[in-house]
């Protein structure tokens, strides 16, 4: 029996799922959910003895009795106002504790060929469209959390773009946790399908209302068909008391291009898995990541890029900053299959430790079975460069500000790759506020 076996509390919740699924649920979905519930019941929570969970013990999650929510909690709309991105013109879907809230959302003026709906609405209507899309990239086998998400799934976002449909405005998915007693866990599922030549920008954004300390367990399945272009922002800005596990699955077809920006600022215990499958020639992924851990925060990111076809490209840059007693983990796996000739894969992980008590582990993993490929990787963990500090001070800038400038600059090299200026600027501000030494910095664009 594993050290993180399911408590009685969760076993009971799973029993209710298995026995109590609503009769109107399509049979295919009921089957998948029951299967997932069984898988989670059998496996329990992951255990640090499992290689993939070596650095992250989810015991704090496993031992807490998170509850599921079945009703909408009251939320004042001005409580949400401060959580957004100032100046962002976007379609908006707001979720509170995983439940879609139409009253805070805005999906007006979607072009023809674009379906953007809550998962609950879609399942109540055109559910058959989801059968090939839901749970087919994200297998329950992937992890107990992916299985739990399927088992307890109640809501989420569905974004389906027909051939050649280009959304001019981004879609902002704002998923917030509310304060509750007991704290809740929610299992949002996000499904994206960009058909041939479609283009879209999606911001998957997690935050919390005052006093929230819940657990968000999300799964995102994203398909980019031939020539599609998808920009995916994953912004985790939870309260420092909140828990978050998120798994993203991306499948790319011929000549598709996906950009992933993954920013982690908040959270007490956070784990992300980004799984990219480049299945056809010409597909390209760009992965940009930044995490900041301070206090007692723990943020663990695993990326897996699977080059399963020739002529595929990946560009990956992750940066981490550790302060206080923060703990960060980055593990980046690149797998190049035997037939995937002319693969071009680059991965770089750079990390900055600002405190003697902070720790960051970085682990690149390259597995290459083809012989005509270009693969490069690099990983560093270090402190601020003394020469740079001296140079700034020699220009009259005090040591503290100089340190702040250098840390901020280190982070900004990732952020400046974001195309959406309002998102970038807002993140820069939140980042500066979280860097004590850079707190007073004004952000110059």
């Amino acid at each position, binding site marked *: 029996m594993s050290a993180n076996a399911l408590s009685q509390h969760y076993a009971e919740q799973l029993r209710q799922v298995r026995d109590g699924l609503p009769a109107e649920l399509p049979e295919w979905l009921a089957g998948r959910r029951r299967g997932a519930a069984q898988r989670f019941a059998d496996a329990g929570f992951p255990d640090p003895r499992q290689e993939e969970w070596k650095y992250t013990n989810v015991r704090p999650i496993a031992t807490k009795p998170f509850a599921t929510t079945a009703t909408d909690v009251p939320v004042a709309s001005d409580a949400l106002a401060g959580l957004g991105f100032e100046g962002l013109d976007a379609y908006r879907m707001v979720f509170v504790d995983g439940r879609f809230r139409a009253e805070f959302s805005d999906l007006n003026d979607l072009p023809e060929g674009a379906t953007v709906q809550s998962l609950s609405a879609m399942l109540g209507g055109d559910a058959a469209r989801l059968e090939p899309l839901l749970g087919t990239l994200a297998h329950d086998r992937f992890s107990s959390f992916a299985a739990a998400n399927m088992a307890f799934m109640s809501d989420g976002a569905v974004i389906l773009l027909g051939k050649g449909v280009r959304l001019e405005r981004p879609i902002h998915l704002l998923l917030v946790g509310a304060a509750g007693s007991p704290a809740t866990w929610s299992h949002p599922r996000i499904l994206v399908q960009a058909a041939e030549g479609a283009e879209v920008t999606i911001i998957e954004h997690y935050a919390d209302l005052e006093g929230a300390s819940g657990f968000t367990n999300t799964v995102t399945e994203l398909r980019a068909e031939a020539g599609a272009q998808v920009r995916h922002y994953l912004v985790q800005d939870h309260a420092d008391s909140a828990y978050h596990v998120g798994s993203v699955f991306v499948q790319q077809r011929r000549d598709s291009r996906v950009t992933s920006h993954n920013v982690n600022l908040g959270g007490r215990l956070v784990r992300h898995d980004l799984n990219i499958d480049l299945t056809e020639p010409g597909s390209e992924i760009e992965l940009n990541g930044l995490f900041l851990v301070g206090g007692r925060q723990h943020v663990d990111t695993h990326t897996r890029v699977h080059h399963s076809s020739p002529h595929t490209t990946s560009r990956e840059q992750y940066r981490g900053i550790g302060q206080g007693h923060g703990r960060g983990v980055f593990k980046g796996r690149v797998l190049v299959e035997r037939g995937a000739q002319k693969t071009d894969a680059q991965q770089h992980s750079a990390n900055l430790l600002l405190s003697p008590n902070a720790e960051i582990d970085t682990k690149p993993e390259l597995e290459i079975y083809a012989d005509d490929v270009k693969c490069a990787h690099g990983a560093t963990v270090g402190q601020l460069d*003394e*020469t*740079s500090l*001296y*140079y*700034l*001070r*020699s*220009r*009259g*800038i*005090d*040591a503290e*500000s*100089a340190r702040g*400038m*250098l840390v*901020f*600059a*280190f982070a*900004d*090299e990732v952020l400046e790759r974001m195309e959406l200026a309002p998102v970038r600027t807002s993140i820069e501000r939140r980042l500066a506020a979280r860097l004590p030494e850079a707190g007073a910095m004004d952000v*110059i664009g």
Partner: protein
Amino acid sequence: MTQENTAMLKINNLQARVENGTPILKGIDLEVRPGEVHAIMGPNGSGKSTLCQVLGGRDGYEVTGGTVEYQGKDLFELEPEERAREGLLLGFQYPVEIPGVKNIYLLKEAYNAQRKHRGEPEADTFQFLKLVREKLQMMQMDESFLHRAVNVGFSGGEKKRNEILQMLVLEPKLALLDETDSGLDIDALKVVSEGVNKLRSPDRAIVLVTHYQRLLSHIEPDFVHVLSAGRIIKSGDKTLAQELERSGYQGIIEEAA
């Protein structure tokens, strides 16, 4: 020249070494008054760079004896940033690349740090840009330099121009230029020298540290000092530099020995 003024910089029997290393500076004496341009010349390993770093306040150097007064204050009591705000600016031999920090941002922060130090209001962006544009023109630098990261991807010549640009914006009282001529082609040397000459004024002093005489044909010094094995072994006027050019360091060193 205003010889009757008190010295701006007064170095008295300065001895220093790299932390826990062998002595490098073995008793330097030097006085610099407002309006003067001094050149300190010397072969490799004579202590030129150590002198600059000690005056700039870099960590890793240890002063083992002597004093340095800057504008009547004990220089070693001042942090590197305080020295800069008080008007002592060091031009680096190897200007540092700082990814992610834009040139304009560094310039503005440095400029305002100095103003704040003097109790003056910070410059607004418009005023500041106007000032910087004027200085850019002097250095024949394109405005795009402002939006590039500090020294990142700059050629050797561009880096040195950038150092002088900072000087022109920050208007130091005492500019200490560490081998500003190294790595410059003839055209860049001319631009950089013209920039330094623009700094010359009766209330400002310049110390040029250099290996070669060629810089001094563009910036005419009032005094030339020869540094060898951690000591100034000979001082004179600009003709000393010409003498060095003819007979090399070896001749002067032997003559002084």
